[in-house]
């Protein structure tokens, strides 16, 4: 009993030390009155036509940081998300083919309401994605919103009905790969254009830079699209929504089938 108490106390001490290191030790208690210098550069140049070489022409500065100034970071973050979903699918391999043929679902009232609400959720999610460069929001948030519609449909209708309508593992995997492909292509779009026009460009280039005079137009017919930011947001939204849908479909597989599958793969070694 004494050793257990000692272990609990030592764990408490370790938790406190780590918490101290994470809060007070790493970040000093300092909240500035003035904007930090780096943030000042970002705020002044993110949507400023008078400094075109440093601007991303995106009014939403967080989106400008995410998809323009630190675009490669975000790309690898999407890669982390992708790897996590691939690992999940690998853990549950074989289960996705054993979907039930019939599903009961919930009552007629719930189904009807879900049919209306799911459409509205998809519309709101699309609006969040498409306005990602203008107002707070973007691909991640809108994609997560759209995935809620899939979750609702899964609960209200059951998995078999969704599989009937081709919202299944295979489709979401394909849509997800399509979104990631679009993401990679829009990251390289300035590079491809530069190869054709025989000039220089960077990966993840949005607006023209020094020595790289090529870039996407930030407005089409007076409608602000912020160059590649809109494209990246759309493809990211598609990829995130399909990734969540895939996770939800895997989670809603019947329990007994999953258990049988796991145990049989263990025995087969």
């Amino acid at each position, binding site marked *: 009993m004494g050793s257990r108490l000692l272990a609990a106390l030592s764990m408490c001490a370790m938790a406190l030390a780590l918490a101290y290191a994470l809060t007070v030790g790493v970040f000093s208690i300092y*909240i500035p009155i003035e904007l930090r210098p780096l943030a000042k550069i970002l705020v002044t140049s993110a949507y400023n036509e008078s400094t075109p070489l440093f601007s991303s022409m995106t009014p939403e500065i*967080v989106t400008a940081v995410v998809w323009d100034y630190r675009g490669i970071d975000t790309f690898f973050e999407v890669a982390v*998300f992708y790897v996590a979903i691939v690992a999940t699918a690998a853990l*549950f391999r074989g289960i996705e083919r054993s979907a039930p043929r019939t599903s009961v679902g919930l009552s007629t009232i719930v189904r009807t309401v879900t049919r209306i609400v799911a459409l509205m959720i998809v519309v709101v999610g699309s609006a969040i994605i498409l306005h990602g460069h203008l107002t707070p929001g973007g691909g991640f948030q809108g994609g997560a919103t759209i995935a809620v519609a899939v979750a609702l449909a899964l609960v209200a209708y059951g998995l078999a009905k969704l599989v009937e309508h081709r919202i299944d593992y295979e489709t979401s995997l394909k849509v997800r790969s399509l979104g990631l492909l679009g993401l990679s292509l829009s990251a390289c779009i300035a590079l491809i254009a530069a190869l054709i026009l025989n000039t220089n460009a960077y990966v993840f280039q949005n607006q023209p830079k020094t020595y790289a005079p090529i870039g996407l137009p930030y407005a089409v017919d007076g409608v602000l699209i912020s160059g590649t930011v809109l494209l990246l947001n759309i493809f990211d939204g598609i990829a995130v929504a399909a990734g969540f849908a895939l996770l939800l479909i895997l989670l809603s597989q019947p329990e007994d089938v999953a258990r049988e599958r796991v145990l049989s793969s263990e025995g087969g070694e």
Partner: protein
Amino acid sequence: MILDLLVLYLYALIFATIGVAIYGVVARSNVAKKIIALTILGDTVNLLLVLLGYRFVERPAPPVVTSLVPTSRDIEYLVEHGVDPLLQAFVITAIVINLAVTALLVFLAIHAYHRFGTLEMDEMGGEV
């Protein structure tokens, strides 16, 4: 003075929550509770980052340029009142990665539950 106390209070809150979350990750033997504690830890670190990005000015503004043809006065206003956009961008990144890690852990836990019939770490090593 009041603002200083508020910052101190928020820091103490975050400190305590991180402590509880780390204790939960380390000391709890149930995998589901470990995962819950880990999500609490991630969200608290996000809260800390958002707090660091805040500014004590009158009427702090979100980092969004609100006019489609911004004059230099608009941008000056944003420099005077806007909060730090960089840390908010970090938090978006952190939330997504947190979510991916949590999803993977949940699926691992389900897998382990199917395999061992329990989520208690102490019982997993025993007879199957």
